[in-house]
């Protein structure tokens, strides 16, 4: 299971608007590469600001608390020098306890390879002293810029986000395969059908008899995944989780027993959901019905 802090980072990355993220330029000219790494962490700044804005929205929604991370803030490090990772997260102490270090996050463009290496070295150092239990390096760039063998890593257990891989789990934020170079969601490379991230699940039609349940599921899926229910089956009636089971058969048995004639929603809790291929007959009918609705409305 993905670490809850890493999951939050991924969610904030997923919410970022590529235009804002790329507003300060997303590549370094070759001549700039000669400058010292610390001096070259400039073009990442717009990305970091946009990331922080989205991350802040998540904690305004109490997501860190809901995921068991407690109340968190960004603040400086009193025990270290000026060269620091881009964002330092602390957990606020409760009931008289002292604040504690939670995570250090750095951002670097792949076109700034010296800065990438410097960040990784810095994170490795800061994990040991002053002691940040989670150190995350976010690399920005295009897939083509990834060196052979993937993103650079300092040690086996360091948290480096890269294509199809998140420290401690599969799937997640990746390098952008497009020309614009901001971080985007990329599904795990399964070689199977196309996938969709749970944050992109489409809204149900308002005419659907399970519109309430579907809207509730879209709101709650993040929390249920964070609680470790990935792969299990949830039964929702109205705006209530009736239960969660390990198999679909168990969830359907509960439906048969408790709601045999009611509209309910049974869903498998997945971070990445398959986008099914449906018959062209269905697509034709769907287009026809959408067209009729537009005509009726207009």
């Amino acid at each position, binding site marked *: 299971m993905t670490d809850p802090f890493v999951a939050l980072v991924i969610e904030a990355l997923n919410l970022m608007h590529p235009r804002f993220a790329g507003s300060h330029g997303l590549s370094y000219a070759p001549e700039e590469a000669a400058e010292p790494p610390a001096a070259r962490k400039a073009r990442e700044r717009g990305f970091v600001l946009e990331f922080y804005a989205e991350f802040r929205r998540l904690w305004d929604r109490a997501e860190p608390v809901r995921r068991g991370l407690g109340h968190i803030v960004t603040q400086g490090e009193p025990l270290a020098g000026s060269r620091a990772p881009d964002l330092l997260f602390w957990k606020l102490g409760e009931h008289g306890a002292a604040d504690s270090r939670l995570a250090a996050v750095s951002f670097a463009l792949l076109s700034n390879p010296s800065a990438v290496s410097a960040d990784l070295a810095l994170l490795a150092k800061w994990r040991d002293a002053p002691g940040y239990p989670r150190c995350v390096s976010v690399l920005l760039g295009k897939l083509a810029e990834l060196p052979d063998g993937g993103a650079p890593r300092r040690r086996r257990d360091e948290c480096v986000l890269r294509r199809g891989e998140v420290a401690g789990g599969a799937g997640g934020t990746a390098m952008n395969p497009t020309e614009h170079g901001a971080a985007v969601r990329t599904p795990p490379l399964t070689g199977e059908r196309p996938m969709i991230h749970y944050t992109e699940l489409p809204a149900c039609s308002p005419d659907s008899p399970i519109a309430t349940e579907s809207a509730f599921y879209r709101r709650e899926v993040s929390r249920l995944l964070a609680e470790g229910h990935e792969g299990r089956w949830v039964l929702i009636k109205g705006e209530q989780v009736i239960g969660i089971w390990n198999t679909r058969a168990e969830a359907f048995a509960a439906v*048969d027993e408790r709601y045999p004639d009611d509209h309910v*929603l049974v869903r498998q809790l997945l971070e990445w959901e*398959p986008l099914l291929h449906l*018959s062209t007959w*269905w697509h*034709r*009918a769907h287009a026809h019905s959408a067209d009729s609705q537009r005509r009726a409305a207009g």
Partner: protein
Amino acid sequence: MPTLTLPILSAGLLVDVRVNLRAPALSARQTAGVPIPASVTGRAILDTGSDVSGISSAVVQQLGLVSTTSTQTQGVGGPVSVDLHRVSLTVWNATQPHLPPLVVPDLLVMEMAHVPFEALIGMDVLLECRLLLDGPVRTFTLEY
């Protein structure tokens, strides 16, 4: 292994079907002494381009089906949510009713409006069978 061999028609690969409530619901009604609805009979088209089987809106209304789950597909404007119902589906040959049918007791199906058939059999069912297409002879065989 039971087989159905049928002609390939200009409309496609068509089979006879019966659709009813899912088997657990039928059993529960039987136990409770509640009348069981009559199966809806009709034609189904085999569609290897669909991951999910479907039934027509008329069948959904006739059986009074409830939505149990949903999935999503890629529509023209992006991902689209699709409600699914649970039914029992029987594939048989109306001209040879003595042959053993293919029975799927609890199948998730999508609703399809404006279609000229009662059901569509997708890969979710076909992957449990062997489908042999004899193009030159214009027949297909379903083994299950």
